[in-house]
């Protein structure tokens, strides 16, 4: 087996003095969703690595904000940084996520972030 050549500097160079995810700004193209859109979280295969919590999958929430552009965790965790996408902050009713959540606290919400690949219109 020959030695693998790792590119030791490109990510550090991109982010130095700018920050991450700021260094991916403007690289994700047109956003598919906007603030206020109702979205359902897709249940993509979850082997090896994901930061899309299983308990959110299949649930419907509302986009509150387009937060930043970045490669999805599935890509960036193996240093694949050439396909940034939009990240969205989505708010859910706790009751939507946890069926046994007490009715007394029916207005409680949970807000968290997703890369665009996990969202579909609901």
């Amino acid at each position, binding site marked *: 087996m020959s030695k693998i050549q790792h590119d030791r500097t490109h990510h*550090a160079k991109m982010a130095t003095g700018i920050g991450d995810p700021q260094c991916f700004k403007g690289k994700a193209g047109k956003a598919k969703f906007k603030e206020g859109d109702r979205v359902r979280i897709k249940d993509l295969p*979850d082997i090896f*690595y994901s930061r899309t919590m*299983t*308990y959110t999958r299949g649930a419907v929430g509302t986009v509150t904000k387009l937060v930043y552009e970045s490669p999805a965790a599935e890509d*960036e965790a193996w*240093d694949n*940084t050439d396909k940034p996408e939009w990240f969205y902050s989505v708010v859910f009713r706790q009751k939507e996520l946890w069926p046994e959540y007490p009715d007394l606290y029916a207005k409680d919400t949970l807000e968290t972030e997703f890369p665009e690949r996990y969202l579909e219109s609901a």
Partner: protein
Amino acid sequence: MSSSIREEVLRHLQTVGYVQPALHKQTHAPYPDTIDHSLWRAYTRSVHDIGGEADVPIVFEEKQEEQWELNTFATCECLAWRGVWNAEERRRRQNVDVGQTQYLGLPYYGRWLLTAARIMVDKQYVTLTELVNKIDEVKKRHEQNTAR
């Protein structure tokens, strides 16, 4: 000397028994037809994705970082600065690739430190032989120093 090594080895095998997960069914080397889709998904999930899993209450304690923990953090940041990994690869390795037993069983910065050593080997900056020899050397030096 060798009898104390044997003692340690036997104690080690016993400790490994203690850290086995408390299983509700026998699982060693299952036949393929006993792993259905839901078991497959449960076994291959990312172990950091703990939301919704059953657990017992734990006591929350405010704790200051110890010096070795701060050193570990700085080491890991230097590895990023020098392009050995990015933050997401670090998280993947220290929160998921370590597996369930280590994820739940080791201290937070213990996983950072273990992972920092692991990536040096995985990406061929050091060989495992070099790392093992270095650990052995430091261990012996430490034993000598504490014996004095």
